[in-house]
Structure formats: C-alpha cells, structure tokens
C-alpha cells in the first residue's frame, strides 16, 4: 500500500517539477510548484513525519507561495518569458551538467546505501514514548536543539528587517 502511494506521488511530483522548470509563464510555474509542495507533504505523511507534513503545507504551499505569486503579479512579469534569449548553448550545458550531477548522486546512493538497510529499531518507539509525532519533535526541539531554535528567531527578525529595508521606496530619489 505504502509502495503504490509512494510511486503515484513520485510520478506526480516529477511531472509537476518538470512543468515548473520548463514552463514559460512564471504564474504557471508557481502553481505547479504548489502541487509539488503538496506532494512533498504526502511523502512526509508516508514517512511518519505528520507534523512536518502539516508545516510543509502551511508554510510552503501557504505562506511562501503566496509571497511568490504576490511578487510575480506586483512586478507584472507574468507574461511569457522567452527562454534563452541570448545564450543558446547555456541550456544544453545546463542539462548536461544536471545529468552529470544526477549520475554522480545516483552512483553514490547505489554504492553506499543499497546494500542492506540502516537502522535497527523503528521510529515508532520514539514517537509512542513521547505520545505522538508532534510531541516527539517538540521534545527534541525544546531540549537538545533549544539554542538553534533561539538562533532561528534572531534569523527571522533579521530577515524581516532586511526585507523591509530592501523593499522600502526611497522618497528622496523619487522627488528628483
């Protein structure tokens, strides 16, 4: 059952990401990317990471993609883009480099991971002991990883300030 669901979602994800990368319209790319994010949510549910799945849908498919669509429409760049206007050879070099990268990662995975499974006990034990997936994540996040968690809040504050400063209109220049 898990296998069937995995392969169906995997095919949908690959098709949607291909459409996203190849699509000429930025808005269409963004909508395909939303589908990809939902598929990732599905993978996380299969992989017993329910809390991360929920966060994936809320943060990525909800917040980040709305931000992207907002900027696309704000800048009126939603018309079709002529792919590779100037550097025609760049497309082929990019694809060849991509295939080289894929085969490199593929060989690494095959050589190092394929023979035998890792791990002895299952994730379920940890999750059941904590009383649920969210509780298990929270326990790790607020004990062992408290310092990185606090550092994240500083990072988010810096991002907010940076975004406001960068996107702010400079009034002096406007009046000139």
């Amino acid at each position: 059952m898990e296998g069937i669901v995995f392969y169906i979602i995997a095919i949908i994800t690959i098709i949607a990401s291909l459409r996203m990368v190849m699509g000429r319209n930025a808005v269409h790319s963004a909508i395909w990317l939303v589908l990809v994010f939902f598929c990732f949510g599905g993978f996380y549910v299969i992989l017993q990471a329910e809390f991360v799945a929920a966060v994936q849908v809320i943060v990525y498919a909800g917040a980040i993609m709305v931000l992207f669509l907002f900027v696309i429409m704000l800048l009126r760049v939603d018309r079709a883009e002529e792919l590779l206007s100037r550097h025609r050879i760049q497309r082929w070099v990019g694809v060849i480099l991509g295939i080289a990268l894929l085969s490199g990662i593929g060989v690494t995975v095959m050589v190092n991971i394929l023979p035998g499974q890792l791990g002895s006990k299952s994730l379920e034990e940890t999750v059941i002991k904590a009383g649920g997936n969210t509780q298990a994540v929270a326990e790790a996040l607020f004990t062992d990883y408290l310092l990185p968690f606090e550092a994240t809040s500083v990072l988010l504050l810096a991002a907010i300030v940076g975004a406001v400063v960068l996107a702010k209109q400079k009034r002096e220049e406007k009046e000139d």
Partner: protein
Amino acid sequence: MVPLSHYLVLSAILFTLGVIGVVVRRNAIVIFMCIELMLNAVNLSFIAMARNLASIEGQVIVLFVMTVAAAEAAVGLAIIVSIYRTRETINVDEINLLKW
C-alpha cells in the same frame, strides 16, 4: 515499505531538476522557485533518513531548513523588487552590473 534508496533517488532527481532550472531559466523569480525545489528535495532525504535511522533529529532539522527557506524567500524577493524598481527587468541576463 519503500526502501530508503528510492527516496534518495527521487530526492536526487528533484534536486537535479532544481539545478537545471537555476542554470537554464532567465526569470529571477523562477530561479528562486527552483532553489525552493532544491531545498525541498534535501528535506525529503532528511525525512527518509530520519525514518530509516529511527531518529527524530532529521525532522527537527527539516523545520530549521524551512525557517531558513522562508527567510531567504522574503529577503530574496525584496531584493528582486528593488532590482525591478531600478532596472525595470528581472531577467538575469540583463542584470549584469554590481552597481547602477
């Protein structure tokens, strides 16, 4: 149960698609979306590894990656907006000066 290697191969395929998108596309916003795709591909291998190694840490790290991705998207899009204000374009072929 799907073996770990299938998840890792899928993650590699999606990461490669993201890399190709970054190299091939000319629209700065689409390049940003491809970066998000690459971050998600890495998240997928984190979660798959977390299940196979029976450790919850993988899921915690994914939360941190998502936070960094959100911050990066906000700042990056602000930079794109500010470039568009001065240059009237977000085609990365035409944005070739460090100072305008």
